[in-house]
């Protein structure tokens, strides 16, 4: 089933970590195999923030892999070495959990493709996000568990999207959890509720064009599909509109960039979405109770229609 939620404050920052936690926790009945946050925090915009994992959360039920946590240290050393070889300088390093790390790095080149390919050539190492504002945090458990584990409730920023997952298409693990980074574009993230039925055909086409897939979760296709459209010169909105015909199946998804938030709904409107829109805040979720967690007062909401694409700027 899965639940998705997102919000964007226009013209100001807010405690988006805490707000998104409330929205996703309200949707936990839609799935609590894993929960993910894509938070667009207030930063000075100088350095990249790289969130990455060097292994899975094997202690809490990951279905993908069993391994000794001692290998994580070895993998981290290789990451550090490769960063040095790429000319990236680690400004700040946080090891939130044995398998999950946050690096603030100085890196001059704009093309992140070569960078990502080198880092991810290390087995089981995956960049969860790379951006100057975006941080993707995803792990097993419901929204509150993940928020508490990573201390997200104090994150201040302009917008955020998140996902509460009931695993259906692929395993219960971090690599299959949402949000997905729009590799290799900095600050692009995607969450999705639905099923894509032309996943393998699209995946083969995109892999032939040099794009990478880290999981077998059909939702990852959306991030890669839109990233490829943007590589070809399309705007975010154009890429999203193209997805309405390029992707087959039922879906509602959100895409966020450094300064915008978008939603798209398939042409059969088969997946739910409730939307609240005002001059200073847009909040949306699979169910109204998600919005109610940040706006408990009586508000006007509506369901976007089939084939609808909307994009808001901060």
């Amino acid at each position, binding site marked *: 089933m899965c639940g998705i939620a997102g919000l964007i404050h226009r013209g100001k920052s807010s405690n988006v970590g805490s707000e998104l936690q409330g929205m996703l926790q309200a949707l936990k009945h839609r799935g609590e195999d894993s929960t993910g946050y894509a938070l667009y925090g207030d930063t000075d915009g100088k350095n990249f923030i790289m969130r990455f994992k060097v292994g899975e959360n094997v202690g809490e039920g990951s279905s993908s892999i069993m391994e000794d946590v001692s290998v994580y240290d070895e993998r981290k050393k290789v990451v550090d070495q490769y960063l040095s070889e790429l000319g990236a300088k680690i400004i700040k390093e946080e090891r939130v959990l044995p398998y999950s790390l946050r690096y603030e790095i100085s890196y001059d080149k704009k093309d992140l493709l070569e960078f990502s390919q080198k880092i991810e050539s290390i087995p089981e190492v995956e960049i969860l996000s790379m951006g100057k504002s975006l941080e993707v945090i995803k792990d097993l458990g419901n929204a509150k568990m993940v928020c508490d584990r990573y201390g997200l409730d104090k994150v201040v920023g302009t917008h955020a999207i998140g996902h509460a997952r009931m695993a259906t298409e692929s395993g219960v693990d971090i690599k299959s959890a949402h949000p997905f980074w729009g590799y290799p574009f900095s600050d692009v993230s995607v969450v999705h509720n639905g099923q894509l039925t032309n996943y393998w055909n699209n995946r083969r086409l995109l892999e032939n064009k040099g794009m990478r897939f880290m999981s077998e979760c059909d939702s990852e296709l959306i991030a890669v599909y839109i990233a490829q459209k943007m590589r070809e010169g399309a705007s975010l909105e154009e890429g999203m509109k193209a997805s309405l015909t390029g992707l087959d199946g039922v879906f509602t998804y959100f895409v966020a960039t450094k300064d915008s938030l978008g939603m798209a709904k398939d*042409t*059969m*409107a*088969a997946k*739910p979405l*409730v939307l609240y829109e005002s001059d200073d805040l847009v909040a949306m979720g699979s*169910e*109204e*109770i998600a*919005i*109610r967690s940040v706006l*408990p007062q*009586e*508000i*006007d*909401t*509506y*369901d976007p*229609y*089939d084939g609808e694409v909307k994009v808001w700027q901060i």
Partner: protein
Amino acid sequence: MANIKNPETKTKAQSMGMHTEVLTGRTQQKFFNPDEAENFYYFGTYDVDFNKRTDLDVKDMTAPEANKEIDNLMSQGYGTIVIKNPQGKHSLGVGILNKLNLIFEGSLGYFGMGSCDGPTVRINGRVGWSCAENLMAGKVVIGKNAGSCFGAAVRGGDLICKGSVGARTGIDMKGGTIIVGGDAGAFTGFMMQRGRIIILGDVGINLGDSMYDGTIFIGGKIGSYGSDAVDAELTKNDQDWLKRKLKVAEIGENFDVSKMKKIVAGKKLWNYDNLEPHEKKGAI
């Protein structure tokens, strides 16, 4: 809903030779016979007084707790209940099989007023997906918008939304009337089998797709017709009925019904007619 006190008694349908096969478990069918009404009892039905009114704040209640309390209040004879702070909770007001004036001061989540039979409900807010699904009788009025699957499988009563509704409005509808003051999404009237849908605004693609029977009236633009949906002549009787229905629904006061489009099923399925099983037997 009726439960049989005396399962040994044969129903009229069974005595006519129908349903003689041995049915067991959850699929066993029971057929109501008015001649044997004394053998049936109805749970959740109470003598209520519409002038006996109370408020119920459900802010700190779960949906089952709130619904149980509504039932409790009806058992005490309250005929008018005002629900405060529904705050988008799911499944509020479900399964009310009684006459009752129910007013929600706020919005409801999914399946609001689902599986009801008899109440008159006013919701001063919005309702999520599957509002009033399976409504048997009564009237449900929503002040703002509603989500998809609005009035799914309704069998009777009036379901009115003064705002706009999502996709698949009246899906699998089997009777009753749905009235929408604003727009409706794709697949409106999808697989509807009976009843009437009135949309004063625009509708999305695939209107009336795979409809078996029933009638759809549209006031605005139509995205596209679904398979089996065709235009029909809007008669004087239709217009009179529409005027009356809109007036009772307190919606579209000055709406020009003469310009509405009427859509019906264009294909009669070989194995379908609009008779109930026992009516079929009588016709033969």
